[in-house]
């Protein structure tokens, strides 16, 4: 078991610590080797125990396609797929990804070609500023994959809206995003 960190309340700072453990934090940083599959490749990184998957992706692995918008699971901009399912990477502790599979927007292209969703989002003008888009794509891809696995024939706007209801977009009013997902569904690979 790691040493129990000790610290005063952040709101009532006491005197500065005398001998920081690593760099400068007030509590010792526990770092572990994290092995997982990222966009089809095996990765091993040293992950601080208090880091989220989002921090590992953006600030350690420099995969900045995954965005940070709200800090705490309210906006969906950081959506990635964990074992094939969309999750907010800001709410996943990095060490809990041990041995699991992660897919980010950088891994969406198929065989060097844009994913049908990337094509339909482009054509429809579904990305304006594009900041929510990577997360939106990861949610949409999971929906389409799940539907194909189920053998669904048609697609309903409501089911798309439900699948994307955790991804906030401030530019588009969602109209073109919903249309783009329908287009991608119809343009089956």
């Amino acid at each position, binding site marked *: 078991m790691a040493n129990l960190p000790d610290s005063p309340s952040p709101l009532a700072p006491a005197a*500065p610590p005398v001998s920081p453990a690593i760099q400068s934090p007030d509590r010792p940083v526990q770092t572990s080797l994290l092995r997982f599959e990222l966009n089809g490749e095996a990765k091993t990184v040293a992950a601080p125990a208090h880091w989220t998957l989002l921090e590992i992706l953006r600030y350690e692995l420099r995969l900045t396609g995954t965005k940070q*918008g709200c800090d705490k699971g309210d906006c969906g901009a950081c959506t990635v797929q964990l074992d094939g399912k969309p999750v907010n990477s800001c709410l996943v502790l990095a060490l809990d990804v041990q041995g699991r599979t992660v897919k980010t927007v950088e891994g969406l292209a198929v065989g060097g070609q844009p994913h049908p969703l990337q094509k339909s989002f482009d054509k429809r003008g579904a990305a304006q500023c594009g900041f929510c888009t990577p997360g939106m794509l990861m949610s949409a891809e999971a929906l389409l994959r799940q539907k194909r696995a189920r053998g669904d024939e048609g697609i309903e706007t409501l089911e798309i809206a439900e699948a994307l209801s955790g991804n906030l977009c*401030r530019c588009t009013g969602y109209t073109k995003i919903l249309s783009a997902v329908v287009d991608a569904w119809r343009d089956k690979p």
Partner: protein
Amino acid sequence: MSAPTTLSSPPFDVVGGDHAKLDAPDRLTGVAAFTDDITLPRMLHAKILRSPHAHARILSIDTTRAAALPGVVDVVVGSEMPLTYGVIPWTPDEQALATDKVRYVGDAVAAVAAIDEETANRALAFIDVHYEVLPALCDPREAMANTDVLIHEDNRHGNISKRVKLAFGEVDSALAAGDSEPGAHRIAGHYEFHGTTHAAIEPHCALAHFDTTGLLTVWSATQVPHYLHRELARVLELPTYRIRVIQPAVGGAFGGKSEPFDLEFVAARLAIKTGRPVKCLYTREEVFLAHRGRHPFSMDYETSVDADGRILAVSGETVLDGGAYSSFGLVTTYYSGQLLCSPYSFGAYRFHSTRVYTNKPACGPKRGHGSVQPRFAIEVQLDKAAHLLDMDPIALRRRNLLGANSTTINGFHIGSNGFAACLDAVEASSDWQTRRAKLPRGRGLGVAGSTYISGTNYCIYPTDLPQAAVQICLDRSGRVRLFTGASDIGQGSNTTLAVIAAEHLGVELADVRVIAADTDLCPVDLGAYSSRQTLMAGNAAIMAAQELGKKVRKAVADHWQCSPKVVTLAGRRAQRLDDPAVFIPIQDAFVLAETAFGTLGSVGHYNTPRSGVHGDYRGGTIGASPAYSFSAHVADVEVDVETGDVTVHHIWAAHDCGRALSPVLVEGQIEGSVYMGVAEALMEHHHVMPTGLGLEGEKEPGPWVSGLLAGSSLLDYPIPTTLDTPEISALIIEDPDPRGPFGAKEAGEGPLHPAIPAVVNAIYDAVGIRIDCLPVTPEKVLAALDALAAQKGSDDA
């Protein structure tokens, strides 16, 4: 007017085509670099310490303990950057970091640069600030009356930030006619528009680097690189030529990134001090505190209409809750009255607007700056008039059309005017006549109209310099490079400019590379605010492209030994108009031109027309624009009379953008505007309680803490999800304006305005209640329904 304008007729080659955004593929693959995606070697991270008091005097700041922390590289306080600044040069009342006083919970007082963000975060707790807490003024009317507590002690007008009083025509007699004339009506209403914020999904971020040559480079998520450039120079006391501002990809702005913020100064100052790159990224809470969102307006309107529904007079008295600083407030105060005089003809008009300082996050420009609030009031006033007159509300609006090539009562010249076509379009698309007749109780339709500016006629600072500029280079590669200071914040200005260049130079859209918003590489443009980019940068692009096009046609004509007049550039070809079988690839044409004229480049600029566009009175220029857009919306709304829930099923939104250079982008602007408007009408509230932390609808908030923002997260500030957004039908109306590039006018802000009053008017149509105080929350709906029932009960008795 110095820039030539083109009002060419279709068919066009590129203009109006079904094309996507140039930069979309990068944004769809995670390649586009937003500011926080950029990392430099040895980069430090800065965090800013913020005031926990709404109003306090700073007695001392001691950074010793923080500076001594391992990992902390440097600390900065306000006395190092004491000069005041403001985006409006007449009202410089902000400091990068406060030196003497803090004026809202969240005001910046000091900052730390450390080896990582976590260390910087933690170090803030080790900065010791002693405050003398002062009484906080959070209610604008209270602040206006208070002469003892002054938020800006050097302000000559107490806590009044700006007052504007303008009158046009015989207002009192025209208003009185509403009482005296047979069949006429005089309608008085009190309206409250609440504060809302932009909530772009990308938080503000700045990165600064001071290199060994003495050049300061600042990358920032800004929509006004030029104004940031100016203010950095002022506050850091550096000449502008030693500063380079680069705007990377921006993740939405909506007005929320249209002036400098503390983080840019802090990152720059710390980069200069440490000699290392410094990044500062806001938390979501800091975005809410930086704010500059829609001002809360408290409005009293009087409107008189004659028996036929003609508007005899409008009079408005408005108090604007400005928050702690001026921001764009001077302009907001003018806009609150000046932008109301179209699309309807007023017999007489006056407004009296007062912006007041309060101890809250500063308000500023949000999509539809200053005019969304009065638009709500006037469109509800007109709806009330229509019901009193027993007139169809669309018919009443038609009766008051201002028309094209007209002058508003406040002296603004209107060029093209597609408002009547907008009304026709929403009436037809919504099936207004038959649908309205058939709706059950609880379901209603509402209509509203509006107008907006395609950029303001004058720069924020007094100058005759160009307001927009574009440089274009061609070469033997067949490629067009377009350099512009214009700011693409997701709205697509880069694509729009490429469309214009491609149309003129005969290339395809993909052949145009746009290099934008880098003050070292690009000519000056004032930035993305007031819906100015398409018209202003577009006209500059036309000027530049025409010059180059002329050279290419001349070189090709010489080659073919014909007149340049019969050479056309289109579809990646130079072609003879009189003999279409004769053509060469555009690349060959560029080679001919480069051979004939040497290296090919041109510049174009745009300045607004200075005569015949506005009235000749003090303030008459503010709000005047080269061209005006028009919008009309119909909303289909359902009210649940037991819960008070309002569901907006559908909005039909028609918008006259002059010419849709990129229809997909214009539709996107209309849809996004409608979404944002509906959200403001029903849910969003940037809610700072005057006394205590009150709740939505709560009558007696707790008495003990003032100036706290009730919700500073995207959980507590609810922006609609896919499931909360109505169906939106975007209807493009094209009434080309001679002043717009290919006739184009704005599309980014105008279509927000009518959504709010259309929804509120539809609620009346559904259940007979007027909600004049926004947002329309379920408890307000129930209270109004209860009052209506009580009224009916007493009427029956």
